[in-house]
């Protein structure tokens, strides 16, 4: 195995890793925000809107990410939505992640005893204050584990963006492999990189979780 190859392609691979991180972080954050909005709207809306949101959640969760990406990237121009690969990648990431995040938030909302919310209403707190000061602080602690879990899943889905020529880590590795006719080593090294990324993120998630949960451990 030739190590000079990795040196020669180092800058490109590093750049690819940067794009992977960008898509992952921006995509996850966007999905988190959109998911939260969906969950809140779901909570406060009537039956009609709920059915609509449910349909959105089911549709996105029932179709492959790659097809969603293709609809956005290749089908988008047909309805006047012309996006660069990176833009399409991040946007489809946001859309793909949002229903999963929404479901996590919804389960978090349901975990708060309704008595607390009724009591808060009785003492005259507004709905936004109830959300901000009573539901969110308790809920975020409960849902740290599933949230990190899904963010980790998203980190691996970034590899799919390579299919629409987003210059992320897998794409750069494929370029390297194709130019140098070495396939096995680059992909093995690549898989180690992703593995490391996932392990580090999982560790970080565990640290956040133990820190957030520490007040519950005393009982």
């Amino acid at each position, binding site marked *: 195995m030739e190590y000079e190859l990795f040196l020669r392609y180092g800058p490109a691979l590093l750049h690819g890793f940067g794009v992977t991180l960008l898509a992952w972080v921006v995509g996850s954050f966007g999905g988190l925000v959109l998911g939260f909005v969906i969950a809140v709207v779901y909570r406060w809306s009537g039956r009609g809107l709920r059915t609509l949101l449910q349909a959105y959640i*089911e*549709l996105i969760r*029932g*179709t*492959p*990410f*790659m*097809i*969603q990406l*293709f*609809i956005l990237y*290749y*089908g*988008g121009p*047909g*309805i006047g939505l012309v996006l660069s690969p990176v833009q399409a990648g991040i946007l489809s990431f946001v859309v793909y992640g949002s229903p999963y995040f929404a479901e996590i938030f919804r389960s978090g909302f349901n975990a708060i005893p309704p008595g607390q919310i009724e009591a808060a209403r009785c003492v005259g707190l507004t709905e936004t204050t109830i959300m901000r000061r009573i539901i969110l602080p308790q809920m975020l602690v409960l849902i740290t584990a599933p949230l990190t879990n899904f963010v980790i899943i998203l980190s*691996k*889905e*970034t*590899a*799919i963006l*390579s*299919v629409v020529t987003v210059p992320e880590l*897998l794409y750069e590795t*494929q370029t390297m*492999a194709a130019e140098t006719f070495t*396939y*096995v080593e680059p*992909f*093995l090294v*690549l*898989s180690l990189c*992703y*593995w490391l990324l*996932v*392990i580090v993120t999982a560790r970080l998630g565990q640290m956040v979780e133990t820190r957030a949960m520490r007040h519950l451990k005393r009982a």
Partner: protein
Amino acid sequence: MDFSFGVILHNLPYLIAAAKWTLLISLVGMAISIGLGVFICAARMSRARWLAAAAALYISFFRGVPLLVQLLIFFYMLPHIGLDLPAIAAAILSVGMCSAAYTAEILRGAFQTIPAGQTEAAKALGIAPASYWRRILVPQALRLGMPSLINELILLVKVSSLASVVGIGELTRVAQNITGQTYRPLEIYIAAAAIYFVINLIISQLGRLAERRMQLAGGARLGV
């Protein structure tokens, strides 16, 4: 560009024919996943330390690396080590082996809810470990893990779209090909998405049916 249903109708037979490959990849992948998953789970729960460590490493690796990367490794590596399998075999194998890691963890979760008293009772009755696993533990674990396993099958249907990258003519690939001929990506990909959605809807409904049947056959809930 206006949305044209004619394009969809005209190409629907090809898409549905391709969906058979999608189903093949996900169903055979699921069979590998369960078969292999049981062994990995057994190894993971084994008292032999090295066996448990090896299983943990397997699970960690296959859950920690993007499936697309695994698929490419399989696709390029198998010929490299002298195993000249067709692309479809590489796809099914990588999908199955990746999913086996998840299945093993699902089954482990299920095994842990089976009361320890059953193990003791089986020992007291002198049932051999192998037949204890085969006739008592695994059937119960499969039933307990059923909802998660159905979920995994749905994931596999979606994940089989990755096989298009190594040139297998499953639903996504055929949709790409048709798009290349018709220049109608929006319609074709939406149609493909709809087919995936319908497949998953059918699987989840069948799963719900199977769950209900198993619960009736099994009587009371386990592990209370």
